[in-house]
């Protein structure tokens, strides 16, 4: 049996301990936020927080999370009361198909947990692990800047980059 918390609620599961966390989140807890994208840790669609740090849930076995604290997209807020990072993404209409966006939100949250005032380069480097196929990158960057309390517009980021 593996015991841990998900969004501050205690969870215990009999599922084989080498099973990646993603499948427990999606199928046992019926949480939709973390998505299957590659199963290889190459795209970030499955990103969740483990003790506040962004991880690939498709690669992280249950055995590695015993006694630890998992936060998923659902732990950040609800449709009626979205969390600040979710609200920033909604404000920027930062989605096309939206499939990668929960992972982008969790990656952004993980970044802000470590570094509340990231530079433009740091935002881009931090999001480097996550792939988007619709080309929503401009809006994702604007949303991440907004979530970090920075001016969201491309021009502001351009000015910041050329100044450094």
């Amino acid at each position, binding site marked *: 049996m593996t015991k841990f918390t998900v969004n501050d609620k205690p969870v215990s599961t009999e599922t084989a301990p080498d099973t990646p966390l993603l499948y427990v989140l999606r199928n046992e807890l019926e949480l939709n936020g973390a998505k*299957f994208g590659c199963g290889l840790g190459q795209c970030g669609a499955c990103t969740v927080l483990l003790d506040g740090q962004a991880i690939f849930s498709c690669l992280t076995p249950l055995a590695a999370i015993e006694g630890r604290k998992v936060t998923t997209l*659902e732990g950040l807020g609800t449709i009626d009361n979205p969390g600040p990072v979710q609200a920033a993404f909604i404000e920027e209409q930062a989605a096309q198909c939206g*499939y990668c966006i929960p992972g982008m939100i969790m990656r952004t949250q993980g970044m802000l947990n470590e570094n509340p005032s990231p530079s433009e380069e740091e935002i881009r480097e931090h999001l*480097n692990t996550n792939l988007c196929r619709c080309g929503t990158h401009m809006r994702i960057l604007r949303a991440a800047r907004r979530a970090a309390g920075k001016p969201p517009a491309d021009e502001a980021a351009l000015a910041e980059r050329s100044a450094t």
Partner: protein
Amino acid sequence: MNAFAGPSMSRRSLLSAGGALVLAFSLSPRLAEAQKTEAKVSGTGKLPGSLSDTPYLDAWIRIGEDDSIAVFTGKAELGQGIKTALIQVAAEQLDVDLKRIVLHTADTGETPNEGYTAASHSMSESGTAIMNAAAQVRAILVARAAEQLGMPATQLTVENGVVSGGGKTLSYGKLVGPDVLHVKARPHSPLKDPKQNTIIGKSVPRVDIPGKLTGAVAYVQDLRLPGMVHARVVRPPVYGAQLTRVDTAKAEGMPGVVKVVRDGNYLAVLAKGEYQAIRAMNALDASASWSGGIALPKKDEIYAVLKGLPSHDTVIQDKGQVGAGRGGTAVKAAYHRPYQLHGSIGPSCAVGHLDGDQLTVWSHTQGAYPDRDAIAEMVGMPQDKVRVIHMEGAGCYGHNGADDAAADAALLATKIPGTPVRVQWMREQEHRWEPYGSAMVVEASATLDGSGKITDWVYDVWSTPHTTRPGPAGSLLAANLIAKPFQAPYPDPIPQPAGGGDRNAVPGYDFPNSRVTKHFIAQMPLRASAMRSLGAYMNVFSLESFMDELALAAKIDPVEFRLQNLTDPRGRDVINLAAEKFGWKDWQRKGPGHGRGFAYARYKNLAVYCAIALEMEVEREAGHVRILRAVAATDSGEAVNPDGIRNQTEGGIVQSASWTLYEEVDYSTQEILSRDWASYPILRFPAVPGAVEVHIVDRPGEPFLGTGEGSQGPTAAAIANSFADATGKRIRDLPLSPEKIRRTLEA
């Protein structure tokens, strides 16, 4: 399976043993129908948009006595924001609040058949139908109110679905009654004066975004039915390989495994738990022996291979007299595009359920009805016993694995009646088995006279098919693999003016003498089908790269050169707007490696207009391109949701930047080598453009022209032109990868 006969079968006789490698040329009427749908141009029937095919108003709009309002579309949300735009159109013409409208999307059980959600047709077909249907419904209800209130309709007002006059009010729900809306649409609708629009033209926030960003059930991947089992398929190592031996016992004995399915060359496993299914899939895969299969061409010979295959050649433009001995400067160039992936970020998924004699499939297909027909044929059931319900998946950008996963779910559901089956493809399966965007070759030549005018234009394009959608059952992978297989149909070209491989091959410019020839290659060395903008991506890349080469030869500014050759006023408007917003006239080169580029096209020569100006820096040693800024101007006709148009255009630019700078399917003669995101690199955040601006030319009252596929071609050419401006060297072979850039700059 014998769908994708390669050109080099005889070269590798070892592979031909046991493989049925002959292309089956079975001309299917339904395939022809499907391809007509792909190429269909809306508004050509007697009634507006898709009302031509589905004329009854209550097929589109139903109002309940409880004042509920349901709107139906045969189109599907693919992440392009169509739901929001269709709700806007309906609410505007019905005069009701947006939030009251419940939109039902593609479902063979309840919505009109609008073929595929493709080709940027959704607004022109479904948007036009719903807009006109809504206006006619409003007029019918107002007329009934006039009758009941004893007042002329002109003296009545409507606010949020309530008709008022003479101090009395009647809601739509009180006015409908049985069959009131079960009438055929008329050719002309009492549409509002666009000046009075309060919802169309507004950047209404997308209705689907809040749920998707907070964990709602939003995708077919999220569908969980009671008792549902998880399936994984095991695919052959290469197209056409035969399953000679498999030890199912080991997989069958693994924890959670419910069933192993083998049907000819089709292999799958069903398990209670999803990860149990993955483990069993791996065991099954390891125990399977395959033989034969189709030899793939050598990747470094692919363009010669394509040109050497039999082709069906059609002159699609023959204007004036080409090559009439006019003197001048002759310019020639050839351009190449490799196979490219749709590469959906979420591998294909579907759920199937055989309940009694009724088969239901939930799928992210782009064509619920055509997919339903193909599935019914494959499983041998009547069409009315098969229902395909669209549920969103991750963005598809064309014909990816969606229909094939739906076929997997349908087939497997028939093997375990009563139990819902969820099939999820693995990343490697999506990469290796989706139908790719075709490799293509373009050759262009032109003559410039002394004043810089183009006197002769000759353009040839070679391509394999750009649609192999279902269609008949033979378009489905599962149907190719089962013991009694369905043959892949002989593909037909998509005719002009939309075109497939020749989409946008006819120049939009006014050249006096022009000959354009398409060379349609029916054989597919690699499986190919519709990928966002079809041949337009390559043709606009080629044509607009060539325009820049000609402008350079003529020593004329590239923007000015385009304007000199273009009379279409709306095309000129977007060119001028993009140049102005970019600051083309006053632009200064900051130093070596800094360059700018411009490109323009009207998608399909009949849809959205798009011009793009772009600047970049080239880091010579690393071979990296850094796009500083892209500025687009676009005319989609009447703009229903400007932010939706911006979102689609920004997305098109960034996606096309990824195709253009990085993307190429890798393969050996033995197998597809692009299996994941390491072996098929795409754009990552550090390389994302510094800024992307989209400027919209709104045309209130003009027809909807679509948006989703307008910017890919112009982006590719603007990048290539910018690179040539920055370095003095031109790359004509996609992609402009770091390795190719380094090679080009060292040469």
